[in-house]
């Protein structure tokens, strides 16, 4: 019984998915299916909160770990899922027959992502990675514009499969050197393994699949294309929910490999991460400067933010990890706000060019204000979490003595101001185009979600203590494992 309680969040989400499937078979209407899914995701969030303080291993020891870190990440995932479902109520940008299937796939993908945050065994990680990806591939195909949907899905799927095959190959090396796929046993054998170059090659290959989900430099090609070609709610899901799980896994892997005193060769991993971070930040920000499509711009901005996160990851310190967990929560809220605006503005459009935001201030002051908060957060301006979060990220790297890296990151943030402000200029200063002058009226649920998200962004920016302490405790729980 205690074991069932430990996996309550995943179980709730999965059962909700099954229930939704049952509703699909029974032929219930879109609204009913959506309501069931929404209630299920709320229950899942509740289950996460219930299990927040629990620690234990529900399955065979060592394979699946429930601790404060994993539960915090699951809570964030569940909250983000609720927010995405708020936007997924019969989106016109999807094929009409796909409206009913949308919540089902979102729930299943979230269940996979939740299992990813807890998995402490390589094959479990790999399977959870695939489980979280498959439903998303299927969802992109269901775009209203069939051509765009199937092309986007093909590109995303092929790149995702290559990345996960590389991950698997890296796992085979680590399995070969240590004779086990359990992270705890690998960590125990690390003093011996650390001197093997093959181990570090394997670890780098292994990280590929998760860096892909995070859209870091060599695996970033998909992000702008996929954001652009996915139906808006699906793009929101990819940009928010799946990032959290990737960050959680990266934190766990680096905690296993990098924190260990014995791993002298961790320097190699660090240098590679630094190079990738610099490349991702520079490339993401420079490419974003010339983008005309809002979702594509957010895609490049996501690449840059992946770079910022790795700046703290390479510090290999609990301070850096805490900063990452803290920033992830804030980043999720900011990105969701921007995508929410994209969903509302692009309600009847297949794509959301930046010019479609013109005159947003007149069309809907509420959305314009949300966009202001979200963009301020992504830019990193006070009083949002973007500023304080980046401050934490960079100070973690500074404490480690990486002055040059922080300088590059700071310069990049300065470049980014230009294209973020361009979006705001369009939204606030330009007159709306003739064809879309109508007033935008988001549903009450969307307004509620937006208020919560804005509140989180501002609250974390003004009074970071509360969230910082939770993040620090979670990282202590993570560090205690290895």
């Amino acid at each position, binding site marked *: 019984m205690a074991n069932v309680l430990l996996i309550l969040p995943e179980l709730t989400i999965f059962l909700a998915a099954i229930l939704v499937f049952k509703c699909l078979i029974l032929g219930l209407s879109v609204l009913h299916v959506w309501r069931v899914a929404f209630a299920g995701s709320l229950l899942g969030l509740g289950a996460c909160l219930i299990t927040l303080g629990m620690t234990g291993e529900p399955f065979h020891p060592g394979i699946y770990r429930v601790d404060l870190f994993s539960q915090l990440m699951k809570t964030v995932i569940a909250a983000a899922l609720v927010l995405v479902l708020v936007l997924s109520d019969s989106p016109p940008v999807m094929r009409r*027959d796909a409206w009913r299937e949308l919540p089902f796939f979102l729930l299943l993908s979230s*269940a996979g992502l939740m299992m990813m945050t807890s998995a402490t065994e390589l094959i479990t990680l790999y399977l*959870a990675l695939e489980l979280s990806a498959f439903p998303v591939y299927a969802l992109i195909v269901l775009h209203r514009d069939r051509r765009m949907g199937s092309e986007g899905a093909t590109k995303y799927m092929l790149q995702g499969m290559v990345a996960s095959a590389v991950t698997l190959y890296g796992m085979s090396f680590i399995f070969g050197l240590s004779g086990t796929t359990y992270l705890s046993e690998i960590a125990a054998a690390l003093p011996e393994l650390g001197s093997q170059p093959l181990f570090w090659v394997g670890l780098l290959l292994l990280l590929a699949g998760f860096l892909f989900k995070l859209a870091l430099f060599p695996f970033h090609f998909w992000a702008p294309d996929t954001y652009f070609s996915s139906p808006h709610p699906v793009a929101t899901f990819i940009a928010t929910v799946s990032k959290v799980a990737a960050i959680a896994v990266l934190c766990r892997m680096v905690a296993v490999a990098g924190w260990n005193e014995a791993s002298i060769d961790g320097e190699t991993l660090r240098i590679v991460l630094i190079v990738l971070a610099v490349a991702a930040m520079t490339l993401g920000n420079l490419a974003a400067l010339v983008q005309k499509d809002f979702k594509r711009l957010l895609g490049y901005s996501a690449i840059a933010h992946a770079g910022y996160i790795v700046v703290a990851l390479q510090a290999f310190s609990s301070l850096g990890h805490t900063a990452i967990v803290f920033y992830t929560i804030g980043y999720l809220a900011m990105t969701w706000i921007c995508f929410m605006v994209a969903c509302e503005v692009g309600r009847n459009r297949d794509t959301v060019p930046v010019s479609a935001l013109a005159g947003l201030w007149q069309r809907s002051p509420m959305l314009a204000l949300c966009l202001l908060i979200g963009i301020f957060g992504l830019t990193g301006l006070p009083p949002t979490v973007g500023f304080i979060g980046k401050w934490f990220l960079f100070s973690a790297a500074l404490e480690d003595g990486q002055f040059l890296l922080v300088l590059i990151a700071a310069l990049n943030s300065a470049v980014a101001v230009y294209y973020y402000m361009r979006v705001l200029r369009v939204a606030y200063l330009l007159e709306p185009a003739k064809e879309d002058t109508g007033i935008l009226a988001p549903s009450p649920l969307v307004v509620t979600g937006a208020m919560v998200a804005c509140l989180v962004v501002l609250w974390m920016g003004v009074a970071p203590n509360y969230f910082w302490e939770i993040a620090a405790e979670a990282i202590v729980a993570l560090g205690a494992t290895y």
Partner: protein
Amino acid sequence: MALVIYYVLFGITVLFALGVLFNRNTVRSAICLVGVMAALAVNYLIMRQEFVAFIQIVVYTGAIMVLFLFVIMLLNLREPEVMPWYLRKARFWGGALSLVFFFTLALAVQVWTVSGVTPGAIENEAFIKESGTPEVILLSTLMITKYVAPFILTSILLLVAVIGAIVMAKRYDEDGQEIISEEEVS
């Protein structure tokens, strides 16, 4: 003798793999891939992994590759693979980098095995004989104890794959009514 057989097999696998890469015809490529998979199954047999060899044949060649061939035939992909790789610099450099990757790691494998850090090799056969239980029983026991979480995950994964494939393949008209049978519009 066994070593000779092994190296012949090695050669066959390499040739088939190159066949997958260099064949311009998709069907021939797929057939070569079947060859690689069958050769790998024999390889597994040489390593005394009978069960793995068996499912390699059944799942890979029997199910996955048949699905591939079926789709290739169904879509009637006649057009040959265009591959002017030597003309395109990006592809050339990609190839060069991959070869560097291959030789570096091959060297690393050599160094690693020569330096003798490998854990002592126990013959698999001896291990199974010692424990006195058939391989399949050992494997299935492992599956529901040590690897129970991936086992649960695979079940969900297959569910997702099945439903996903059905949803994607369904064809609807504009009003959302399912089209049961209709000729492909060309």
